[in-house]
Protein backbone atom coordinates (compact mmCIF):
# COMPACT_ATOMS: atom_id res chain seq x y z
CA UNK A 1 0.00 0.00 0.00
CA UNK A 2 2.83 2.32 0.95
CA UNK A 3 4.66 1.71 -2.31
CA UNK A 4 1.48 2.14 -4.29
CA UNK A 5 0.73 5.47 -2.60
CA UNK A 6 4.19 6.81 -3.41
CA UNK A 7 3.84 5.67 -7.02
CA UNK A 8 0.49 7.41 -7.37
CA UNK A 9 1.83 10.64 -5.86
CA UNK A 10 4.71 10.61 -8.33
CA UNK A 11 2.24 10.11 -11.18
CA UNK A 12 0.27 13.18 -10.06
CA UNK A 13 3.19 15.55 -10.46
CA UNK A 14 3.59 15.44 -14.27
CA UNK A 15 -0.16 15.84 -14.77
CA UNK A 16 -0.24 18.89 -12.52
CA UNK A 17 2.79 20.46 -14.17
CA UNK A 18 1.25 19.72 -17.56
CA UNK A 19 -2.02 21.32 -16.49
CA UNK A 20 -0.16 24.41 -15.29
CA UNK A 21 1.71 24.66 -18.61
CA UNK A 22 -1.51 24.19 -20.59
CA UNK A 23 -3.42 26.91 -18.73
CA UNK A 24 -0.45 29.24 -18.78
CA UNK A 25 -0.03 28.85 -22.55
CA UNK A 26 -3.79 29.11 -23.21
CA UNK A 27 -3.92 32.45 -21.44
CA UNK A 28 -0.97 33.66 -23.50
CA UNK A 29 -2.84 32.84 -26.71
CA UNK A 30 -5.14 35.77 -26.04
CA UNK A 31 -4.77 38.12 -28.97
CA UNK A 32 -3.37 41.48 -27.92
CA UNK A 33 -2.31 42.83 -24.58
CA UNK A 34 -4.19 41.53 -21.54
CA UNK A 35 -4.13 44.86 -19.72
CA UNK A 36 -5.19 46.87 -22.76
CA UNK A 37 -7.98 44.44 -23.56
CA UNK A 38 -9.19 44.45 -19.98
CA UNK A 39 -9.28 48.23 -19.70
CA UNK A 40 -10.58 48.89 -23.18
CA UNK A 41 -13.44 46.58 -22.25
CA UNK A 42 -14.73 49.31 -19.99
CA UNK A 43 -15.13 51.53 -23.00
CA UNK A 44 -13.21 54.41 -21.49
CA UNK A 45 -10.16 56.19 -22.77
CA UNK A 46 -7.18 54.32 -21.43
CA UNK A 47 -4.15 56.00 -20.01
CA UNK A 48 -0.83 54.46 -21.05
CA UNK A 49 0.58 54.75 -17.55
CA UNK A 50 -2.40 52.79 -16.16
CA UNK A 51 -1.61 49.99 -18.61
CA UNK A 52 2.02 50.10 -17.59
CA UNK A 53 1.12 49.86 -13.90
CA UNK A 54 -1.22 46.98 -14.66
CA UNK A 55 1.50 45.17 -16.59
CA UNK A 56 3.95 45.79 -13.79
CA UNK A 57 1.53 44.47 -11.14
CA UNK A 58 0.84 41.32 -13.10
CA UNK A 59 4.51 40.78 -13.78
CA UNK A 60 3.89 40.81 -17.54
CA UNK A 61 7.21 42.53 -18.17
CA UNK A 62 9.13 39.52 -16.86
CA UNK A 63 10.21 36.69 -19.12
CA UNK A 64 7.82 33.80 -19.77
CA UNK A 65 9.86 31.49 -17.59
CA UNK A 66 9.76 33.91 -14.67
CA UNK A 67 6.02 34.37 -15.08
CA UNK A 68 5.43 30.65 -15.19
CA UNK A 69 7.62 30.14 -12.13
CA UNK A 70 5.65 32.80 -10.26
CA UNK A 71 2.34 31.18 -11.29
CA UNK A 72 3.37 27.74 -10.03
CA UNK A 73 5.06 29.12 -6.91
CA UNK A 74 1.86 31.04 -6.16
CA UNK A 75 0.02 27.76 -5.83
CA UNK A 76 2.65 26.38 -3.50
CA UNK A 77 2.51 29.34 -1.11
CA UNK A 78 -1.21 30.12 -1.63
CA UNK A 79 -0.59 33.59 -2.94
CA UNK A 80 -1.94 34.04 -6.44
CA UNK A 81 -1.55 37.78 -6.76
CA UNK A 82 -4.33 40.34 -7.20
CA UNK A 83 -7.50 39.96 -9.25
CA UNK A 84 -7.44 42.17 -12.34
CA UNK A 85 -11.01 43.25 -11.74
CA UNK A 86 -11.45 43.91 -8.01
CA UNK A 87 -7.79 44.26 -7.09
CA UNK A 88 -8.28 42.03 -4.05
CA UNK A 89 -5.94 39.08 -3.60
CA UNK A 90 -7.22 36.09 -5.61
CA UNK A 91 -6.66 33.77 -2.65
CA UNK A 92 -9.02 35.96 -0.63
CA UNK A 93 -11.69 35.96 -3.36
CA UNK A 94 -11.54 32.18 -3.62
CA UNK A 95 -11.51 31.68 0.16
CA UNK A 96 -14.74 33.67 0.48
CA UNK A 97 -16.60 31.32 -1.86
CA UNK A 98 -14.85 28.02 -1.44
CA UNK A 99 -16.96 26.84 1.45
CA UNK A 100 -20.30 27.41 -0.26
CA UNK A 101 -19.31 25.56 -3.41
CA UNK A 102 -17.79 22.63 -1.58
CA UNK A 103 -20.89 22.37 0.56
CA UNK A 104 -23.20 22.29 -2.47
CA UNK A 105 -20.90 19.73 -4.08
CA UNK A 106 -21.02 17.49 -1.01
CA UNK A 107 -24.79 17.84 -0.67
CA UNK A 108 -25.19 17.00 -4.35
CA UNK A 109 -22.97 13.96 -3.92
CA UNK A 110 -25.05 12.76 -0.98
CA UNK A 111 -28.29 13.34 -2.91
CA UNK A 112 -26.88 11.53 -5.91
CA UNK A 113 -25.57 8.51 -4.03
CA UNK A 114 -28.68 8.15 -1.86
CA UNK A 115 -30.82 8.02 -5.00
CA UNK A 116 -28.44 6.05 -7.19
CA UNK A 117 -27.52 2.96 -5.19
CA UNK A 118 -31.05 1.77 -4.34
CA UNK A 119 -32.35 2.64 -7.82
CA UNK A 120 -29.46 0.96 -9.60
CA UNK A 121 -29.82 -2.13 -7.42
CA UNK A 122 -33.56 -2.46 -8.05
CA UNK A 123 -33.04 -1.89 -11.74
CA UNK A 124 -30.42 -4.64 -11.95
CA UNK A 125 -32.45 -7.14 -9.92
CA UNK A 126 -35.56 -6.48 -11.99
CA UNK A 127 -33.64 -6.40 -15.26
CA UNK A 128 -35.81 -6.00 -18.37
CA UNK A 129 -39.02 -5.44 -16.47
CA UNK A 130 -41.03 -2.23 -16.50
CA UNK A 131 -39.27 -1.13 -13.29
CA UNK A 132 -35.92 -1.43 -15.05
CA UNK A 133 -37.19 0.58 -18.02
CA UNK A 134 -38.55 3.33 -15.78
CA UNK A 135 -35.29 3.58 -13.83
CA UNK A 136 -33.21 3.59 -17.00
CA UNK A 137 -35.34 6.27 -18.63
CA UNK A 138 -35.13 8.29 -15.42
CA UNK A 139 -31.36 8.08 -15.46
CA UNK A 140 -30.97 8.78 -19.18
CA UNK A 141 -33.21 11.81 -18.68
CA UNK A 142 -30.93 12.92 -15.84
CA UNK A 143 -27.96 12.94 -18.15
CA UNK A 144 -29.93 14.76 -20.84
CA UNK A 145 -31.48 17.44 -18.67
CA UNK A 146 -29.42 20.62 -18.33
CA UNK A 147 -28.95 21.33 -14.62
CA UNK A 148 -29.66 25.02 -15.12
CA UNK A 149 -33.05 24.21 -16.58
CA UNK A 150 -33.81 21.79 -13.76
CA UNK A 151 -32.86 24.64 -11.40
CA UNK A 152 -35.34 26.98 -13.08
CA UNK A 153 -38.03 24.29 -12.89
CA UNK A 154 -37.31 23.72 -9.18
CA UNK A 155 -37.64 27.43 -8.46
CA UNK A 156 -40.83 27.58 -10.52
CA UNK A 157 -42.18 24.52 -8.70
CA UNK A 158 -41.37 26.04 -5.31
CA UNK A 159 -43.09 29.29 -6.22
CA UNK A 160 -46.22 27.57 -7.48
CA UNK A 161 -46.59 25.00 -4.69
CA UNK A 162 -45.97 27.47 -1.88
CA UNK A 163 -48.39 29.88 -3.52
CA UNK A 164 -50.95 27.12 -3.74
CA UNK A 165 -50.56 25.74 -0.21
CA UNK A 166 -49.59 28.76 1.84
CA UNK A 167 -50.96 31.52 -0.34
CA UNK A 168 -47.55 33.11 -0.31
CA UNK A 169 -44.84 32.45 -2.88
CA UNK A 170 -41.63 31.35 -1.15
CA UNK A 171 -38.10 31.52 -2.52
CA UNK A 172 -34.95 30.03 -1.01
CA UNK A 173 -33.03 32.60 1.06
CA UNK A 174 -30.48 34.60 -0.93
CA UNK A 175 -28.08 35.33 1.90
CA UNK A 176 -25.58 32.57 2.65
CA UNK A 177 -25.64 31.31 6.25
CA UNK A 178 -22.72 29.06 7.23
CA UNK A 179 -23.84 25.64 8.39
CA UNK A 180 -22.50 26.08 11.93
CA UNK A 181 -24.45 29.32 12.41
CA UNK A 182 -27.85 27.97 11.40
CA UNK A 183 -27.97 24.53 9.78
CA UNK A 184 -31.67 24.83 8.95
CA UNK A 185 -31.36 28.12 7.13
CA UNK A 186 -28.24 26.85 5.39
CA UNK A 187 -29.98 23.72 4.12
CA UNK A 188 -33.06 25.66 3.02
CA UNK A 189 -30.83 27.63 0.69
CA UNK A 190 -28.43 24.99 -0.58
CA UNK A 191 -30.55 21.86 -0.88
CA UNK A 192 -32.19 23.09 -4.13
CA UNK A 193 -29.03 23.67 -6.14
CA UNK A 194 -27.71 20.41 -4.67
CA UNK A 195 -30.76 18.64 -6.05
CA UNK A 196 -30.40 20.27 -9.45
CA UNK A 197 -26.79 19.10 -9.80
CA UNK A 198 -27.35 15.89 -7.85
CA UNK A 199 -29.89 14.55 -10.34
CA UNK A 200 -27.32 14.29 -13.11
CA UNK A 201 -24.89 12.81 -10.63
CA UNK A 202 -27.41 10.18 -9.54
CA UNK A 203 -28.16 9.35 -13.17
CA UNK A 204 -24.54 8.53 -13.92
CA UNK A 205 -24.12 6.56 -10.68
CA UNK A 206 -27.41 4.66 -11.18
CA UNK A 207 -26.28 3.44 -14.58
CA UNK A 208 -22.95 2.40 -13.12
CA UNK A 209 -24.50 0.59 -10.15
CA UNK A 210 -26.86 -1.26 -12.46
CA UNK A 211 -24.26 -2.46 -14.94
CA UNK A 212 -21.72 -3.33 -12.22
CA UNK A 213 -24.26 -5.31 -10.24
CA UNK A 214 -25.44 -7.15 -13.36
CA UNK A 215 -21.87 -8.13 -14.06
CA UNK A 216 -21.27 -9.41 -10.53
CA UNK A 217 -24.56 -11.32 -10.47
CA UNK A 218 -23.29 -13.38 -13.40
CA UNK A 219 -20.25 -14.61 -11.45
CA UNK A 220 -19.74 -18.12 -10.22
CA UNK A 221 -19.71 -17.34 -6.52
CA UNK A 222 -23.19 -15.87 -6.78
CA UNK A 223 -24.36 -19.06 -8.41
CA UNK A 224 -22.75 -20.99 -5.55
CA UNK A 225 -24.55 -18.83 -3.03
CA UNK A 226 -27.84 -19.45 -4.81
CA UNK A 227 -27.12 -23.17 -5.09
CA UNK A 228 -26.62 -23.53 -1.38
CA UNK A 229 -30.03 -21.97 -0.92
CA UNK A 230 -29.15 -18.55 0.44
CA UNK A 231 -32.07 -16.15 0.29
CA UNK A 232 -31.86 -13.59 -2.53
CA UNK A 233 -31.80 -10.62 -0.14
CA UNK A 234 -28.65 -11.87 1.55
CA UNK A 235 -27.01 -12.68 -1.77
CA UNK A 236 -27.53 -9.13 -2.98
CA UNK A 237 -26.73 -7.29 0.24
CA UNK A 238 -23.86 -9.34 1.52
CA UNK A 239 -22.21 -10.81 -1.55
CA UNK A 240 -23.06 -8.91 -4.71
CA UNK A 241 -23.32 -5.27 -3.65
CA UNK A 242 -19.93 -5.21 -1.97
CA UNK A 243 -18.10 -6.23 -5.11
CA UNK A 244 -20.18 -4.14 -7.46
CA UNK A 245 -19.43 -0.99 -5.46
CA UNK A 246 -15.88 -0.74 -6.80
CA UNK A 247 -16.65 0.90 -10.16
CA UNK A 248 -19.36 2.95 -8.46
CA UNK A 249 -16.77 4.42 -6.09
CA UNK A 250 -14.69 5.46 -9.09
CA UNK A 251 -17.64 7.11 -10.80
CA UNK A 252 -18.60 8.92 -7.60
CA UNK A 253 -15.07 10.26 -7.28
CA UNK A 254 -14.73 11.34 -10.89
CA UNK A 255 -18.15 12.95 -10.90
CA UNK A 256 -17.32 14.81 -7.71
CA UNK A 257 -14.48 16.54 -9.51
CA UNK A 258 -16.76 17.28 -12.44
CA UNK A 259 -19.37 18.75 -10.12
CA UNK A 260 -17.18 21.82 -10.06
CA UNK A 261 -18.08 22.17 -13.74
CA UNK A 262 -21.77 21.65 -13.04
CA UNK A 263 -21.68 24.31 -10.35
CA UNK A 264 -20.70 26.91 -12.93
CA UNK A 265 -24.22 26.89 -14.33
CA UNK A 266 -26.21 25.96 -11.23
CA UNK A 267 -24.81 28.78 -9.13
CA UNK A 268 -25.87 31.16 -11.87
CA UNK A 269 -29.49 29.98 -11.70
CA UNK A 270 -29.76 30.13 -7.92
CA UNK A 271 -27.67 33.26 -7.76
CA UNK A 272 -25.22 31.71 -5.31
CA UNK A 273 -21.98 33.51 -4.71
CA UNK A 274 -19.72 30.50 -5.16
CA UNK A 275 -16.68 29.49 -7.16
CA UNK A 276 -18.71 28.74 -10.29
CA UNK A 277 -20.17 32.22 -10.33
CA UNK A 278 -16.74 33.69 -9.66
CA UNK A 279 -15.42 31.75 -12.65
CA UNK A 280 -18.14 33.02 -14.96
CA UNK A 281 -17.60 36.57 -13.73
CA UNK A 282 -13.86 36.28 -14.27
CA UNK A 283 -14.45 35.20 -17.87
CA UNK A 284 -17.01 37.95 -18.52
CA UNK A 285 -14.76 40.61 -16.95
CA UNK A 286 -11.67 39.44 -18.84
CA UNK A 287 -10.02 38.88 -15.47
CA UNK A 288 -7.38 36.55 -16.87
CA UNK A 289 -5.40 36.24 -13.65
CA UNK A 290 -8.47 34.98 -11.84
CA UNK A 291 -9.59 32.67 -14.69
CA UNK A 292 -6.14 31.15 -14.80
CA UNK A 293 -6.10 30.54 -11.04
CA UNK A 294 -9.60 29.03 -10.97
CA UNK A 295 -9.01 26.68 -13.90
CA UNK A 296 -5.85 25.48 -12.20
CA UNK A 297 -7.75 25.03 -8.94
CA UNK A 298 -10.30 22.80 -10.69
CA UNK A 299 -7.52 20.70 -12.22
CA UNK A 300 -5.91 20.44 -8.79
CA UNK A 301 -9.18 19.26 -7.22
CA UNK A 302 -9.66 16.79 -10.06
CA UNK A 303 -6.20 15.28 -9.74
CA UNK A 304 -6.38 15.05 -5.95
CA UNK A 305 -9.87 13.50 -6.04
CA UNK A 306 -8.62 10.94 -8.55
CA UNK A 307 -5.71 10.18 -6.27
CA UNK A 308 -7.99 9.64 -3.28
CA UNK A 309 -10.35 7.48 -5.36
CA UNK A 310 -7.44 5.33 -6.50
CA UNK A 311 -6.30 4.90 -2.91
CA UNK A 312 -9.78 3.88 -1.77
CA UNK A 313 -10.02 1.54 -4.72
CA UNK A 314 -6.68 -0.05 -3.85
CA UNK A 315 -7.74 -0.42 -0.24
CA UNK A 316 -11.00 -2.11 -1.24
CA UNK A 317 -9.45 -4.35 -3.87
CA UNK A 318 -5.99 -5.74 -3.03
CA UNK A 319 -5.53 -7.00 -6.62
CA UNK A 320 -4.95 -3.42 -7.77
CA UNK A 321 -2.11 -2.75 -5.35
CA UNK A 322 -0.04 -5.62 -6.60
CA UNK A 323 -0.66 -5.37 -10.31
Amino acid at each position, binding site marked *: MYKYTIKRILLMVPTLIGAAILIFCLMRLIPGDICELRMAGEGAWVDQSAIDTCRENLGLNDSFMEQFGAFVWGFVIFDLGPSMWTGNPITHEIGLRFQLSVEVAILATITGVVIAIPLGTISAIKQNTWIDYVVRSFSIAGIAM*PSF*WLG*IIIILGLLITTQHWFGDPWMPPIEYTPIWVDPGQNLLQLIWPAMATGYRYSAVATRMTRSALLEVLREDYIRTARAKGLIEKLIINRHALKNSMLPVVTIIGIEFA*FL*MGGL*VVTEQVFNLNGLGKLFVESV*LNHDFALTQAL*VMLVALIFVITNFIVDLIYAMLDPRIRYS
Partner: protein
Amino acid sequence: MSASTEASLVDTELEELSDQRSLTEKCKTLARKNPLGAFGFAIAALMVFAAVFAEVITWHDPVDIAFEHMLVPPSLNFLLGTDQLGRDIFARIVYGARTALLVGITASVIGAFIGLVLGVASAYFGGTFDLLFQRVMDVFMAFPLIILALAIVSIFGGGIDKVIIAITVPFIPRCARVVRSNALAIREIPYVDAARAMGFSHSRIILRHMVPNVMAPFLIMITAFVGQAILTEASLSYLGMGVQEPTPAWGLMLQGGAEEYAESAPWVPIFPGLAITLAVFGFNLFGDAVRDTLDPRLRSQ
Protein backbone atom coordinates in the same frame (compact mmCIF):
# COMPACT_ATOMS: atom_id res chain seq x y z
CA MET B 1 -16.84 2.21 -46.21
CA SER B 2 -14.69 -0.55 -47.68
CA ALA B 3 -15.48 -4.25 -47.58
CA SER B 4 -12.78 -4.94 -45.01
CA THR B 5 -14.23 -2.32 -42.66
CA GLU B 6 -17.63 -3.83 -42.83
CA ALA B 7 -16.29 -7.27 -42.11
CA SER B 8 -14.89 -6.04 -38.83
CA LEU B 9 -17.99 -4.11 -37.87
CA VAL B 10 -20.62 -6.61 -38.75
CA ASP B 11 -21.57 -8.78 -35.85
CA THR B 12 -24.14 -11.50 -35.81
CA GLU B 13 -27.00 -9.11 -35.41
CA LEU B 14 -26.14 -7.22 -38.54
CA GLU B 15 -25.32 -10.34 -40.49
CA GLU B 16 -28.84 -11.54 -40.04
CA LEU B 17 -29.98 -8.32 -41.58
CA SER B 18 -27.68 -8.31 -44.56
CA ASP B 19 -29.91 -10.61 -46.58
CA GLN B 20 -32.26 -9.67 -49.36
CA ARG B 21 -35.04 -8.09 -47.33
CA SER B 22 -36.12 -4.53 -48.01
CA LEU B 23 -34.66 -1.63 -46.08
CA THR B 24 -37.89 -0.90 -44.18
CA GLU B 25 -38.06 -4.46 -43.02
CA LYS B 26 -34.46 -4.36 -41.83
CA CYS B 27 -35.20 -1.19 -39.90
CA LYS B 28 -38.25 -2.81 -38.35
CA THR B 29 -36.19 -5.74 -37.13
CA LEU B 30 -33.55 -3.46 -35.67
CA ALA B 31 -36.22 -1.32 -34.02
CA ARG B 32 -37.87 -4.35 -32.45
CA LYS B 33 -34.56 -5.49 -31.05
CA ASN B 34 -33.76 -2.08 -29.64
CA PRO B 35 -36.93 -0.06 -29.06
CA LEU B 36 -35.16 2.62 -27.00
CA GLY B 37 -32.59 3.13 -29.77
CA ALA B 38 -35.33 3.41 -32.37
CA PHE B 39 -37.05 6.01 -30.20
CA GLY B 40 -33.81 7.95 -29.93
CA PHE B 41 -33.30 7.77 -33.66
CA ALA B 42 -36.83 9.07 -34.22
CA ILE B 43 -36.14 12.10 -32.01
CA ALA B 44 -32.83 12.78 -33.75
CA ALA B 45 -34.50 12.46 -37.15
CA LEU B 46 -37.28 14.82 -36.08
CA MET B 47 -34.66 17.34 -35.01
CA VAL B 48 -32.82 17.09 -38.32
CA PHE B 49 -36.14 17.52 -40.13
CA ALA B 50 -36.94 20.63 -38.07
CA ALA B 51 -33.50 22.08 -38.73
CA VAL B 52 -33.63 21.50 -42.48
CA PHE B 53 -37.22 22.60 -43.07
CA ALA B 54 -37.40 25.36 -40.46
CA GLU B 55 -38.72 27.88 -43.00
CA VAL B 56 -41.56 25.58 -44.02
CA ILE B 57 -42.60 24.49 -40.55
CA THR B 58 -42.80 27.89 -38.90
CA TRP B 59 -44.90 30.90 -39.87
CA HIS B 60 -43.29 33.53 -37.62
CA ASP B 61 -39.86 35.04 -37.92
CA PRO B 62 -37.63 33.81 -35.07
CA VAL B 63 -35.77 37.10 -34.66
CA ASP B 64 -38.61 39.53 -35.31
CA ILE B 65 -39.16 41.66 -32.19
CA ALA B 66 -42.79 42.71 -31.73
CA PHE B 67 -43.69 44.44 -28.49
CA GLU B 68 -47.40 44.42 -29.29
CA HIS B 69 -47.54 40.71 -28.45
CA MET B 70 -45.04 40.07 -25.68
CA LEU B 71 -45.48 37.11 -23.33
CA VAL B 72 -48.57 35.84 -25.13
CA PRO B 73 -49.59 32.43 -23.76
CA PRO B 74 -49.58 29.44 -26.12
CA SER B 75 -52.35 29.66 -28.72
CA LEU B 76 -53.05 28.49 -32.25
CA ASN B 77 -51.16 31.42 -33.73
CA PHE B 78 -48.24 31.18 -31.28
CA LEU B 79 -48.06 27.45 -30.62
CA LEU B 80 -45.72 27.77 -27.64
CA GLY B 81 -46.39 31.40 -26.77
CA THR B 82 -44.07 34.39 -27.17
CA ASP B 83 -41.13 35.61 -25.10
CA GLN B 84 -40.51 38.97 -23.42
CA LEU B 85 -39.61 40.53 -26.79
CA GLY B 86 -42.70 39.17 -28.54
CA ARG B 87 -40.80 36.56 -30.52
CA ASP B 88 -42.54 33.29 -31.33
CA ILE B 89 -41.06 30.58 -29.08
CA PHE B 90 -42.04 27.76 -31.41
CA ALA B 91 -40.15 29.39 -34.30
CA ARG B 92 -37.15 30.03 -32.09
CA ILE B 93 -37.08 26.42 -30.95
CA VAL B 94 -37.31 25.11 -34.51
CA TYR B 95 -34.55 27.45 -35.71
CA GLY B 96 -32.63 26.69 -32.51
CA ALA B 97 -32.47 23.04 -33.62
CA ARG B 98 -30.40 24.28 -36.54
CA THR B 99 -27.88 25.97 -34.21
CA ALA B 100 -27.77 23.00 -31.84
CA LEU B 101 -27.23 20.48 -34.63
CA LEU B 102 -24.65 22.62 -36.36
CA VAL B 103 -22.59 22.91 -33.18
CA GLY B 104 -23.27 19.36 -31.98
CA ILE B 105 -22.47 17.54 -35.20
CA THR B 106 -19.57 19.72 -36.35
CA ALA B 107 -17.84 19.56 -32.97
CA SER B 108 -18.33 15.79 -32.66
CA VAL B 109 -17.17 14.96 -36.18
CA ILE B 110 -14.11 17.22 -36.16
CA GLY B 111 -13.16 16.26 -32.60
CA ALA B 112 -13.62 12.54 -33.25
CA PHE B 113 -11.66 12.74 -36.50
CA ILE B 114 -8.66 14.47 -34.90
CA GLY B 115 -8.91 12.08 -31.96
CA LEU B 116 -9.00 9.14 -34.36
CA VAL B 117 -5.84 10.13 -36.20
CA LEU B 118 -3.97 11.02 -32.99
CA GLY B 119 -5.11 7.90 -31.16
CA VAL B 120 -4.14 5.54 -33.97
CA ALA B 121 -0.82 7.28 -34.52
CA SER B 122 -0.05 7.06 -30.80
CA ALA B 123 -0.81 3.34 -30.71
CA TYR B 124 1.09 2.70 -33.94
CA PHE B 125 4.32 4.47 -33.02
CA GLY B 126 4.23 3.41 -29.37
CA GLY B 127 7.27 3.96 -27.14
CA THR B 128 8.21 7.42 -25.94
CA PHE B 129 5.81 9.13 -28.33
CA ASP B 130 2.90 7.13 -26.98
CA LEU B 131 3.94 7.75 -23.37
CA LEU B 132 4.25 11.50 -23.88
CA PHE B 133 1.02 11.63 -25.83
CA GLN B 134 -0.79 9.79 -23.06
CA ARG B 135 0.45 12.28 -20.48
CA VAL B 136 -0.71 15.21 -22.63
CA MET B 137 -4.14 13.63 -22.98
CA ASP B 138 -4.23 13.14 -19.18
CA VAL B 139 -3.63 16.83 -18.76
CA PHE B 140 -6.54 17.74 -21.06
CA MET B 141 -8.79 15.26 -19.27
CA ALA B 142 -8.05 16.91 -15.94
CA PHE B 143 -10.50 19.67 -16.84
CA PRO B 144 -14.25 19.25 -16.85
CA LEU B 145 -15.59 19.82 -20.35
CA ILE B 146 -17.41 23.03 -19.56
CA ILE B 147 -14.46 24.54 -17.67
CA LEU B 148 -12.06 23.99 -20.56
CA ALA B 149 -14.70 25.19 -23.03
CA LEU B 150 -15.24 28.35 -20.96
CA ALA B 151 -11.50 28.96 -20.74
CA ILE B 152 -11.25 28.71 -24.53
CA VAL B 153 -14.24 31.01 -25.02
CA SER B 154 -12.64 33.51 -22.64
CA ILE B 155 -9.71 33.67 -25.03
CA PHE B 156 -11.41 33.74 -28.41
CA GLY B 157 -14.75 35.29 -27.44
CA GLY B 158 -18.29 34.06 -28.14
CA GLY B 159 -20.02 33.25 -31.39
CA ILE B 160 -21.00 30.05 -33.10
CA ASP B 161 -17.59 29.23 -34.69
CA LYS B 162 -15.74 29.85 -31.42
CA VAL B 163 -18.20 27.68 -29.54
CA ILE B 164 -17.52 24.84 -31.98
CA ILE B 165 -13.77 25.15 -31.32
CA ALA B 166 -14.34 25.34 -27.57
CA ILE B 167 -16.35 22.10 -27.59
CA THR B 168 -14.13 20.29 -30.09
CA VAL B 169 -10.88 20.71 -28.16
CA PRO B 170 -11.99 18.94 -24.93
CA PHE B 171 -13.48 16.14 -27.04
CA ILE B 172 -10.24 15.25 -28.87
CA PRO B 173 -8.47 13.54 -25.92
CA ARG B 174 -11.62 11.65 -24.93
CA CYS B 175 -11.90 10.16 -28.39
CA ALA B 176 -8.16 9.64 -28.83
CA ARG B 177 -8.00 7.58 -25.66
CA VAL B 178 -10.77 5.17 -26.69
CA VAL B 179 -9.43 4.84 -30.23
CA ARG B 180 -5.89 4.26 -28.98
CA SER B 181 -6.86 1.33 -26.77
CA ASN B 182 -8.63 -0.28 -29.73
CA ALA B 183 -5.76 0.44 -32.09
CA LEU B 184 -3.26 -1.13 -29.67
CA ALA B 185 -4.96 -4.48 -30.17
CA ILE B 186 -4.99 -4.07 -33.95
CA ARG B 187 -1.29 -3.27 -34.08
CA GLU B 188 -0.56 -6.75 -32.78
CA ILE B 189 -2.38 -8.44 -35.65
CA PRO B 190 0.17 -9.89 -38.13
CA TYR B 191 -1.19 -8.08 -41.17
CA VAL B 192 0.14 -4.80 -39.81
CA ASP B 193 3.60 -6.37 -39.56
CA ALA B 194 3.12 -7.66 -43.09
CA ALA B 195 2.30 -4.17 -44.31
CA ARG B 196 5.41 -2.87 -42.60
CA ALA B 197 7.50 -5.64 -44.18
CA MET B 198 6.18 -4.59 -47.57
CA GLY B 199 7.85 -1.27 -46.91
CA PHE B 200 4.68 0.83 -46.83
CA SER B 201 5.00 4.30 -45.38
CA HIS B 202 3.78 5.05 -41.85
CA SER B 203 0.96 7.25 -43.07
CA ARG B 204 -0.23 4.58 -45.48
CA ILE B 205 -0.29 1.90 -42.79
CA ILE B 206 -2.09 4.22 -40.39
CA LEU B 207 -4.66 5.50 -42.85
CA ARG B 208 -5.27 2.43 -45.01
CA HIS B 209 -4.72 -0.44 -42.63
CA MET B 210 -5.39 0.71 -39.09
CA VAL B 211 -7.95 3.52 -39.30
CA PRO B 212 -10.61 1.41 -41.10
CA ASN B 213 -10.44 -1.13 -38.30
CA VAL B 214 -11.18 1.35 -35.53
CA MET B 215 -14.25 2.70 -37.29
CA ALA B 216 -16.53 1.12 -34.68
CA PRO B 217 -15.22 3.08 -31.67
CA PHE B 218 -14.98 6.13 -33.94
CA LEU B 219 -18.67 6.01 -34.87
CA ILE B 220 -19.60 5.23 -31.27
CA MET B 221 -17.69 8.26 -30.01
CA ILE B 222 -19.33 10.56 -32.57
CA THR B 223 -22.88 9.52 -31.75
CA ALA B 224 -22.19 9.48 -28.02
CA PHE B 225 -20.78 12.98 -28.11
CA VAL B 226 -23.44 14.81 -30.13
CA GLY B 227 -25.79 14.96 -27.14
CA GLN B 228 -23.07 16.15 -24.82
CA ALA B 229 -21.99 18.81 -27.31
CA ILE B 230 -25.56 20.09 -27.59
CA LEU B 231 -25.77 20.25 -23.80
CA THR B 232 -22.47 22.10 -23.51
CA GLU B 233 -23.47 24.57 -26.22
CA ALA B 234 -26.72 25.24 -24.35
CA SER B 235 -24.80 25.78 -21.10
CA LEU B 236 -22.33 28.17 -22.72
CA SER B 237 -25.12 30.11 -24.40
CA TYR B 238 -27.07 30.21 -21.14
CA LEU B 239 -24.06 31.76 -19.44
CA GLY B 240 -23.95 34.35 -22.22
CA MET B 241 -20.65 33.09 -23.56
CA GLY B 242 -21.79 30.89 -26.38
CA VAL B 243 -23.99 31.68 -29.34
CA GLN B 244 -24.87 35.39 -29.34
CA GLU B 245 -28.21 37.14 -29.86
CA PRO B 246 -30.13 37.36 -32.11
CA THR B 247 -29.24 33.85 -33.35
CA PRO B 248 -31.92 31.53 -32.00
CA ALA B 249 -30.33 29.04 -29.58
CA TRP B 250 -32.01 27.04 -26.85
CA GLY B 251 -29.57 27.95 -24.11
CA LEU B 252 -29.90 31.61 -25.01
CA MET B 253 -33.69 31.42 -24.72
CA LEU B 254 -33.31 30.39 -21.07
CA GLN B 255 -31.02 33.28 -20.32
CA GLY B 256 -32.02 36.59 -18.81
CA GLY B 257 -35.77 37.00 -18.95
CA ALA B 258 -36.67 33.33 -18.60
CA GLU B 259 -36.17 33.25 -14.84
CA GLU B 260 -37.83 36.56 -14.12
CA TYR B 261 -40.93 35.62 -16.07
CA ALA B 262 -40.96 32.08 -14.75
CA GLU B 263 -44.03 32.56 -12.63
CA SER B 264 -46.16 34.79 -14.83
CA ALA B 265 -45.14 33.19 -18.12
CA PRO B 266 -43.91 29.67 -17.42
CA TRP B 267 -43.89 28.80 -21.13
CA VAL B 268 -40.86 31.01 -21.64
CA PRO B 269 -38.45 28.82 -19.63
CA ILE B 270 -40.24 25.46 -19.95
CA PHE B 271 -40.26 24.82 -23.70
CA PRO B 272 -36.63 25.58 -24.63
CA GLY B 273 -35.47 23.41 -21.71
CA LEU B 274 -37.74 20.60 -22.88
CA ALA B 275 -36.25 20.92 -26.35
CA ILE B 276 -32.70 20.58 -25.00
CA THR B 277 -33.63 17.62 -22.80
CA LEU B 278 -35.49 15.84 -25.59
CA ALA B 279 -32.70 16.38 -28.11
CA VAL B 280 -29.93 15.18 -25.79
CA PHE B 281 -32.14 12.32 -24.60
CA GLY B 282 -32.73 11.23 -28.21
CA PHE B 283 -29.10 11.44 -29.26
CA ASN B 284 -27.97 9.58 -26.12
CA LEU B 285 -30.43 6.75 -26.70
CA PHE B 286 -29.41 6.56 -30.33
CA GLY B 287 -25.73 6.60 -29.34
CA ASP B 288 -26.31 3.77 -26.84
CA ALA B 289 -27.98 1.73 -29.56
CA VAL B 290 -25.13 2.35 -32.00
CA ARG B 291 -22.66 1.29 -29.31
CA ASP B 292 -24.59 -1.87 -28.43
CA THR B 293 -24.82 -2.84 -32.09
CA LEU B 294 -21.23 -2.10 -33.05
CA ASP B 295 -19.34 -3.09 -29.94
CA PRO B 296 -21.14 -4.62 -26.98
CA ARG B 297 -17.89 -4.78 -25.01
CA LEU B 298 -17.84 -1.01 -24.63
CA ARG B 299 -21.14 -1.13 -22.74
CA SER B 300 -19.64 -0.42 -19.33
CA GLN B 301 -18.02 2.76 -20.56
